[in-house]
């Protein structure tokens, strides 16, 4: 009998321990943030995890709320982990997701809570203007979505996340030492696309094996997204650029203007780093950091990665994709877009504490800590503190964020794409145009028109 009692007691103890282990260890939903609470957070960026943990230490010191940040990489693993956690009810309190897309889909699918009522105007005003509404689902996006998209079930105006990091794509990094060795100026960026191609020619002639341009074309859409789109936007102007993608257009990629932009892109063909189509984005950056290429294309976030891989930021010259001399705009301004955002999961039992943590980490103080540690641009406007917190090179990139509105290229504007837009398909056509040379610009134009025509048809 005593033995039976002991068994029952041990079973009860085990059940209690299991129950304790399964609970998220916080207060009840809606309970105010309180010292002693603990939060969990997942991010898909390894470099952010360390920086966020550093910010979390300060946050804990201020509030008594602890935060455990976990990096789940790469992207597909992050996504499948969220999928399985959503099914088993094991989501963390806070998620860092890709902004203006993934975060909205997570919200529309019911995984992120609508925090619009908690993020007041003063909070929103902290962010760079072009990033403020990145986590808000607008009616336009709902209208453009395919009929089976979760957006159709969501309410317009819901705010599922606040912007966290910002930046721009289409930033060229040049190795100053290689420029010098090739007789090019290490301090003056090329003023035009034509000068850039000429500089590439010079550096490749000087060093045929390691004087070219690296880009992770294994991810086929990066050439199309990061080089072609800003180049075509500057050449054609906003209206004609957006017209390339329009439904039933006669001024598409196969039109004279479209073919000209493809011809400009195709001028890169002789200067790609050998084997560029087998390199992932990170691998291409590493190749550049190792001196295997003279130029590399990435985003503002690439500078941090180059630094992590041993290339000092003062050894690179950074500039946006230069415009063509014969184009509509003679300068390129990149509108910063929100790259990642932070949201509170709908199952979080620590909503108030989670909001407090997001509030801190998007405040100038918290964002500054993260920016300094991760060398990534925050969506929070750091004002005069920017150079001190981020370093002169990263802060200098911000000068390309302001300029004439008509020549500003906004990669975050997706209003003119077909619903269910899949950038991989046009990306493959661009790889076949350059570097593979399987298509000439006219044929690539026709194929791209067919690709977008099919997307519009699918969207119907």
């Amino acid at each position, binding site marked *: 009998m005593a033995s039976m009692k002991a068994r029952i007691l041990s079973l009860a103890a085990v059940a209690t321990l299991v129950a304790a282990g399964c609970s998220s260890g916080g207060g009840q939903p809606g309970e105010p943030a309180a010292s002693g609470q603990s939060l969990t957070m997942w991010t898909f960026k390894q470099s952010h995890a360390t920086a966020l943990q550093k910010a979390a230490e300060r946050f804990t010191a201020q509030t008594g709320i602890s935060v455990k940040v976990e990096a789940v990489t790469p992207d597909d693993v992050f*996504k499948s982990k969220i999928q399985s956690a959503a099914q088993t009810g094991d989501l963390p309190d806070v998620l860092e997701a890709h902004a203006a*897309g993934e975060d909205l889909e*997570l919200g529309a699918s*019911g995984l992120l809570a609508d925090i619009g009522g908690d993020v007041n105007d003063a909070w929103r005003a902290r962010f760079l203007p072009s990033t403020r509404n990145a986590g808000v689902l607008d009616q336009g996006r709902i209208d453009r979505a395919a009929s089976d*998209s*979760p957006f159709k079930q969501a309410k317009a105006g819901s705010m599922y996340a606040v912007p966290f990091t910002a930046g721009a794509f289409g930033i060229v990094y040049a190795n100053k030492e290689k420029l010098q060795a090739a007789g090019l100026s290490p301090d003056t960026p090329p003023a035009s696309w034509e000068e850039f191609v000429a500089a590439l020619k010079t550096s490749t002639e000087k060093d045929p*094996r390691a004087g070219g341009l690296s880009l992770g074309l294994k991810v*086929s859409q990066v050439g199309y997204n990061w080089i072609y789109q800003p180049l075509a936007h500057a050449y054609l102007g906003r209206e004609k650029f957006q017209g390339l993608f329009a439904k039933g257009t006669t001024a598409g990629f196969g039109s004279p203007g479209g073919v000209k932009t493809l011809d400009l892109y195709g001028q890169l063909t002789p200067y790609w780093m050998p084997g560029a189509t*087998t390199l992932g984005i990170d691998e291409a950056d590493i190749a550049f950091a190792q001196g295997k290429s003279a130029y590399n294309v990435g985003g503002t976030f690439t500078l941090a990665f180059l630094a992590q891989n041993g290339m000092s930021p003062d050894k690179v010259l950074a500039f946006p994709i230069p415009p063509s001399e014969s184009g509509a705009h003679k300068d390129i301004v990149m509108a910063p877009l929100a790259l990642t955002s932070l949201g509170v999961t709908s199952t979080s039992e620590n909503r108030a504490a989670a909001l407090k943590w997001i509030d801190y980490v998007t405040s100038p103080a918290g964002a500054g800590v993260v920016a300094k540690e991760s060398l990534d641009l925050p969506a929070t406007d750091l004002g005069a503190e920017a150079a001190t917190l981020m370093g002169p090179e990263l802060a200098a990139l911000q000068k390309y964020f302001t300029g004439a509105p008509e020549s500003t290229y906004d990669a975050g504007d997706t209003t003119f794409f077909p619903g269910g837009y899949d950038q991989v398909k046009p990306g493959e056509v661009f790889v076949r145009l350059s570097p*593979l040379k399987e298509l000439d610009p006219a044929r690539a134009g026709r194929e791209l028109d067919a690709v977008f025509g099919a997307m519009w048809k699918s969207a119907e």
Partner: protein
Amino acid sequence: MATRWKEWLTGWAFVFPAVALFAVMGVYTIGSGLALSFASWNGFTPNWIWVGLENYADLLWADPSLAPAVRRAAWNTLHVCVAVPLLTVLISLPLAVTLNSVRRLRGLLRSVYFLPYVTTGIATYYAWRYLLEPEGSINLMLRSAGLGSLARPQGWLADPSTALWTLILILVWSAVPTATLLYLTGLQAIDPSMVEAARIDGAAPRQVLRRIIVPLLTPMTAGIVLLGVRDSLHGFQIFLIMTNGGPGGHTSVLALETYELAFFKGLAPTLGLSSALGWLLFAGAVLLTLANARLLRRVR
């Protein structure tokens, strides 16, 4: 009666864990996967949207932005499905016969030929990538041997004319050790007196191989071909890691398309499409297996 009941219970107690495991991991997963192929879902929303056979139609012809990519992947998959088993048999059978006939260092040689199997996996794919780079060992060897014209300046995986065949050869390289081992097992099961009798009757080694050994190894060949077809249809790791379907879609295969539809379409509701493509692959595998079995039965 009570004894029989007790025996029945004991029997079920032993079998239950395996049945439960199969029910959860097998029946449930297969059933749920099949049901998903008739739905639209992104993995997050609480409900699936039922679309009937639409996913299958979209993949095969109805969706103009999807069907052409699936057809191209199917064409590449067909190349892999035919070439990998065929080359595996063509290499491993003579290799096994040779290894079976050598008297000295037989153990060492077997170990050497079995090494690719022991080391195979993601790590070796990365190692192959280094060898196949523009400045990798293979180009270097060709240039050193005066065969620079055969070297690929963009690397073997970045050149559309060599990318798919390079991957096929690596798959064959991974498959040959197991096939050789299976053939060796088959060879050792052949009664030596049959071979001896043929030799006494004046049969040349080539005739012994063609008339006696190859027919007797037919069941083994069937197994090796089936394994090759199965691996070719389902395997996508090598394509994901080494080329991601590139350059320009030249190495995209159906299994990779399935994976990409599931995990690389943002959060678009493409899990149903992915599942439908998985079931189409399954149907293809069943058809190929039946055709192969029938062909081999006829040969036998």
